[in-house]
């Protein structure tokens, strides 16, 4: 049987062959990312037919008559990473707070693992780990004492708290009060608190907010690791590249309305966004530029130093290369950039992040 998988790192589509039930090691030809692929038989696949872990139906919430969230509906499947995007004030945090029962909604239905958040609040919340945008702790207590407290609430063990403190690199600050922690340390402790007790669903609101690049990378890697373990992750972030890298699907909210929900690939198809070819040449001339511009399917041609940036669909790639070669161009390097989430976001919201 043949299956197509998407590289979690570069989103490259890889088609591989194998037998039912076989587990194969694969390496992405584009970025060399390594991983394992299981060829599931039909029965297993049917058994895993994903039941939504978070289900939102017709959610509406208004503040002083202004609808912060207006009749939105979506669901998140088991094991999925769902990126949630929107400009400031679009309704992201209101949606997250509604899911967690932090605010009273005006109408709609929210279910977490089939438990209604308002009718079976405790049962629903047992399934969720949450990292708020503004991560805060009890500043007079140490990081470990804070985790012990949350562990008691979640029914987790003290051993797990100690392991998490070590895992997130906070082991050297065991006796330090959280009030003396740096922003990055607080953020890491926030992530540790969210995954404490191994909840099957994680809701992360701006998890990389205020972190340095290494902190951002650590959070990103953690999200990938949790995804591998089958954890469902709902993540909201302003860093679109980060969302694009880790998400299976994204939802875009604008002025309280959900304007898009799908994979980045599907959304770029819907919007007819084209990839950008970058051709690096030894020599560049007006003839080469004109030869590319004369191709009907090419939308845009820009030249910078010895590189030509060409906006066209994948099918036109060959034509472009041929035209450059015919015009006397000597190609050194060729790269293709897929449409970015930022382009998609801009098209849906008309806004910069």
């Amino acid at each position, binding site marked *: 049987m043949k299956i197509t998988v998407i590289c979690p790192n570069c989103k490259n589509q890889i088609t591989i062959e194998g037998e039912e039930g076989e587990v194969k090691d694969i390496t992405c030809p584009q970025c060399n990312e390594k991983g394992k692929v299981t060829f599931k038989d039909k029965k297993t696949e049917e058994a895993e037919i994903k039941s939504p872990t978070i289900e939102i139906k017709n959610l509406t919430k208004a503040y002083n008559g202004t609808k912060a969230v207006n009749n939105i509906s979506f669901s998140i499947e088991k094991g999925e990473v769902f990126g949630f995007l929107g400009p400031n004030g679009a309704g992201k945090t209101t949606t997250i*707070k509604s899911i*967690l*029962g*932090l*605010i*009273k909604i005006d109408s709609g239905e929210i279910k977490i693992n089939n438990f209604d958040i308002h009718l079976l*609040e*405790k*049962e629903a*919340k*047992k399934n*969720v780990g*949450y990292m*708020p945008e*503004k*991560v*805060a*702790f*009890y500043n*007079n*207590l140490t990081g470990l*004492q804070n985790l012990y*407290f*949350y562990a*008691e*609430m*979640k029914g987790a063990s003290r051993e797990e708290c100690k392991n998490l403190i070590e895992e997130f690199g906070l082991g050297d600050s065991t006796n330090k*009060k959280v009030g003396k922690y740096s922003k990055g340390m607080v953020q890491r402790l*926030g992530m540790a*608190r969210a995954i404490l007790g191994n909840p099957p669903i994680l*809701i992360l609101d701006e998890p990389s907010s205020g972190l340095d690049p290494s902190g951002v990378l650590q959070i990103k890697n953690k999200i990938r690791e949790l995804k591998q373990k089958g954890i469902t992750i709902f993540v909201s972030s302003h860093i679109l590249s980060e969302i694009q890298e880790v998400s299976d699907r994204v939802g875009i909210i604008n002025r309280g309305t959900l304007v898009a929900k799908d994979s980045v690939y599907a959304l770029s198809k819907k919007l007819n966004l084209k990839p950008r070819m970058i051709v690096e040449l030894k020599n560049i001339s007006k003839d080469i530029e004109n030869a590319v511009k004369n191709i009907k399917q090419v939308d845009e041609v820009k030249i910078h130093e010895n590189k030509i940036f060409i906006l066209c669909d994948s099918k036109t790639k060959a034509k472009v290369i041929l035209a450059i070669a015919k015009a006397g161009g000597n190609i050194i390097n060729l790269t293709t950039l897929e449409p970015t989430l930022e382009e998609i976001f801009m098209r849906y919201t008309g806004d910069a992040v």
Partner: protein
Amino acid sequence: MIQNIIFSIAKKEIMDNIRNKWIIVMSISFAVLTLLVSYAGSIGSGGWQDLSGTVEGMSVLVNYFLTIIALMLSYSAIIGEIERGSMSALISLPVKRLEIILGKFLGLGAVLTFTILVGFGVAGIVIGTMVPNVDYWRYLLFIGATVLVGLVFLSIGMLLSCLLKKRSTAMGSAIFVFFLFTIIWGLILAALLIVTGNIQFSSDPNVAPVLKNPDWQYAMNFLNPLSAYGGIIKFNVLSSTDATYPAFYNSVNVFIALLIWLFAPLIVAYWAFKNKDI
């Protein structure tokens, strides 16, 4: 499970507050002042005087010192956590808002009770060693009533913390409550007595005004927890035999009034917190 969660929250409140420098300073000051008041009250009598003799001085300390400690402990218990951001993480856990309110109240109540027991306990032991035949039963009643009125102000502080939208507003309101029940209340009462003609002034400046002590004046004592506390002390600790009180103003009713003052703000606080958007 519900008891475990309430207990865990209470334990966290205790751990958090015993590390709070402000609370430590206030508690030590309270203990020192209690000793000073109990000793100062005895200077005139040439040594440490009987416990019941110092109770009046100590209850003044309760009025001004313990009220402010209780209000300062509780005014930011809920709104402070909401503003700081830790409340959203707490509510996202499998915890009910009622458990949060009860856990916090019990934790803060334990801190306050400990402060009272240390302050009055140390004074009691010192005086007990100095004065023969101390009536400890009455002293324990005094401590019990003091804990109760402390919890009442804790409950009022929790109400402000749940009802108001900003920590700064809750703090301002707590300060107002303090002044209302300690100073302004007496002024209101005096004004009402004058307006209703229950204080009669003589045209002769050498003759003191005559106070009629109407019944409603005693009923007003139920409306101020500090006055109700004063009533408990008067009836049970000082054993006042003043026979001019109306029938409804008695030991049981002032105790009931204080219990209402304890539970009513807590119930309203829970209702406000339950409906609050975090």
